[in-house]
């Protein structure tokens, strides 16, 4: 009876899925236009997920020697119920969609499906690695080796399937990026844990007082498992032309690793300064944060160096995302840490509680955030203006941060006014204590919002000036490709066809031409050696 409920439920769901496939097939027969196929791929991801976890549960219940009492009837029944419905559903959907992939080669559903499976089962695999390592170092526990085989097998099978039918188009890089992201996060966590243990042991052996983390089996195992996975997914060559997904991945990871490194470096410097200025307790206790901070700095620094090199020097989407991301993080840190520093500096202390160490840490954080913001904001301001003000990353930074800081300033001003009006309406007393945070937050956030708003206005005016002017581009080539669709709507594109085949415009050349024309009336000459652009006289 125990299996009846889940079985009925799964049968109903399976029936609905089968009905969906049938309807989809009829639709395909009526119009063979392809489409996204997103729903069938999502259903297949769901079915593969249920089937995969059911197999893992079945194998665990049957093969892992960790049972201490009773028979695993419930687990077996639950796993079987899941498999009975999800297994055939996954198989049929796989066959059906494999046929469709042969007809519609550029279907984005396939890479989206591969990405979902990769993020779910690669994460499950790393969790299983951690549990396995934990069990190996604990004599009482039985290693759950079956999870490793099932989850690892599912990931490996999908890598094999991907290698047979590589996904194309922009979204085709998504599975590799997802695998790289899951692996690099696991690798970083494992490496930080391992180094932290190592440095704590070393610090303790030198006479320092520190809480040494438990045995490094789990972080070490995660490092050893994630390193080859990351190398496999990230290090092989990518297509030369970057996609928006890869730019986003690179910019986010580079910015995040620099934030981690900076945070760790600030801690190291602040602890040293507080020691030098005599704000410390016993020497052996004072540097207790160093093992962890140094681990974060080393791992974050290594990740930053690698990903920063991958971005290169060209001012593409990844570079902009990284610089504007860092400017945003710097500005947010500057506002937050400044307000906290003001609050702590003016906080009346009744007794004890020397805040010198915290003040030094906050002071260092304010300086580091301010430097980061100043450095990256100066970098983006040095970039060519006409191209920069059109960049999505800049608009997101300016508008997003202006709205956030503006709303923060408005909210804190309301809080400050409540205090003021309460005092004016007779609820007297010293209001300086209650006003300290709202007032400082209003001023600091307001200044940031004003700075951002002025740039939003300047950019808007410059954009209107350049966009409002129509221009004409005359292109001499043998095959123009899709170049006319890449120009803004103000452009009038005229193509003069060459008689020979020496002037073909491919996708990358089209981007380069549009970029070089830059909204001015131009004459473009394309031949076997590339292209040349000359400004045309305005008529």
């Amino acid at each position, binding site marked *: *009876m*125990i299996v*009846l*409920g*889940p079985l*009925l*439920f799964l049968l109903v769901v399976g029936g609905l899925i089968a009905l969906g496939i049938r309807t989809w097939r009829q639709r395909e027969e009526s119009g063979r236009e392809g489409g996204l196929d997103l729903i069938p791929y999502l259903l297949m991801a769901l079915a593969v997920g249920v089937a995969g976890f059911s*197999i893992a549960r*079945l*194998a665990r*219940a*049957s*093969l*892992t*020697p*960790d*049972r*201490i*009492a*009773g*028979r*695993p*009837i*419930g*687990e*077996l*029944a*639950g796993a*079987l119920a899941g*498999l009975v419905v999800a*297994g*055939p559903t996954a*198989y049929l959907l796989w*066959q059906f969609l494999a046929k469709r992939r042969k007809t519609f080669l550029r279907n984005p559903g396939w890479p989206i499906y591969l990405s979902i499976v990769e993020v779910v089962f690669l994460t499950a695999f790393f969790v299983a690695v951690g549990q396995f390592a*934990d069990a190996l170092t*604990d004599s*009482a*526990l*039985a290693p759950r080796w079956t999870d490793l085989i099932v989850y690892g097998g599912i990931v490996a099978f999908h890598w094999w399937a991907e290698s*047979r039918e590589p996904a194309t188009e922009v979204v085709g890089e998504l599975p590799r990026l997802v695998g790289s992201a899951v692996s690099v996060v696991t690798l970083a966590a494992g490496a930080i844990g391992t180094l932290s243990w190592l440095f704590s042991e070393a610090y303790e052996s030198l006479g320092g007082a520190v809480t040494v983390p438990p045995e490094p089996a789990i972080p070490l195992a995660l490092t050893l498992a994630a390193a080859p996975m990351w190398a496999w997914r990230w290090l092989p060559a990518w297509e030369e032309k970057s996609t928006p997904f890869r730019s986003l991945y690179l910019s986010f990871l580079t910015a995040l690793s620099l934030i981690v490194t900076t945070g760790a470096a600030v801690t190291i410097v602040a602890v040293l300064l507080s020691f030098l200025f005599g704000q410390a307790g016993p020497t052996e206790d004072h540097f207790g944060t160093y093992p962890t901070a140094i681990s974060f700095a080393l791992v974050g620094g290594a990740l930053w160096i690698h990903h920063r090199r991958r971005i290169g020097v060209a001012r593409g989407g990844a570079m902009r995302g990284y610089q504007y991301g860092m400017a945003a993080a710097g500005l947010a840190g500057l506002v937050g840490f400044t307000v906290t520093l003001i609050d702590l500096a003016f906080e009346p202390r009744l007794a004890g509680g020397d805040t010198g160490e915290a003040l030094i840490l906050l002071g260092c954080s304010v300086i580091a955030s301010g430097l980061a913001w100043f450095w990256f904001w100066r970098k983006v301001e040095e970039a060519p203006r006409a191209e920069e003000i059109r960049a999505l990353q800049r608009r997101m930074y300016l508008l997003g941060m202006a709205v956030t800081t503006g709303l923060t300033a408005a909210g804190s001003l309301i809080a400050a006014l409540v205090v003021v009006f309460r005092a004016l309406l007779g609820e007297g007393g010293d209001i300086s204590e209650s006003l300290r945070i709202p007032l400082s937050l209003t001023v600091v956030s307001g200044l940031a919002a004003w700075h951002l708003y002025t740039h939003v206005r300047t950019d808007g005016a410059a954009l209107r000036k350049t966009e409002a002017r129509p221009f004409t581009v005359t292109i001499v080539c043998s095959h123009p490709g899709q170049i006319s669709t890449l120009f803004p709507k103000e452009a009038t594109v005229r193509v003069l066809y060459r008689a020979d085949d020496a002037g073909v415009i491919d996708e990358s050349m089209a981007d380069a031409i549009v970029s070089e024309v830059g909204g001015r009336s131009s004459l473009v000459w394309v031949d076997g050696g590339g292209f040349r652009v000359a400004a045309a006289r305005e008529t």
Partner: protein
Amino acid sequence: MVDDRRMPSWLWPVIGLIAVVTLVLIGLNREPAEFDPNTPEGTVQVYIGALVDGDFETAASYWADEGCTPISNIPTRGAPQVSVSLVSVDGNDVQANVVVRITENSEDPLGGLVEYQEWFTLTHQDGSWKVRQPSWPYYDLACEEQT
């Protein structure tokens, strides 16, 4: 390029089916692991085994005589029908914590399975490990007043 030497498409489901049936048969016929009864995990194994078998007298003999103790040897809901696996063991020579994962079949046919973790605190008394203040499976406890 598609490989011509592909296996027939029906072979994968058949292999899968055989694997599943084999796993189920292994799971049904496999006995629980055997832990040393003189260890915390072994004590918990014997204790839970006695409860599952309905041998409440034997289970009660594993209770420590300190802190809160059950007012009756019989749990409030009778013998639990569960399967239990080990999650973690830690402690020292005097006290230990054993965490187990309990899978309980719901009596409601649509209810499926209920899985939860239970913590057993054990104390070393008179040369053997005893379960301190048993909270599973649903005993009413009486506590000595502190003076």
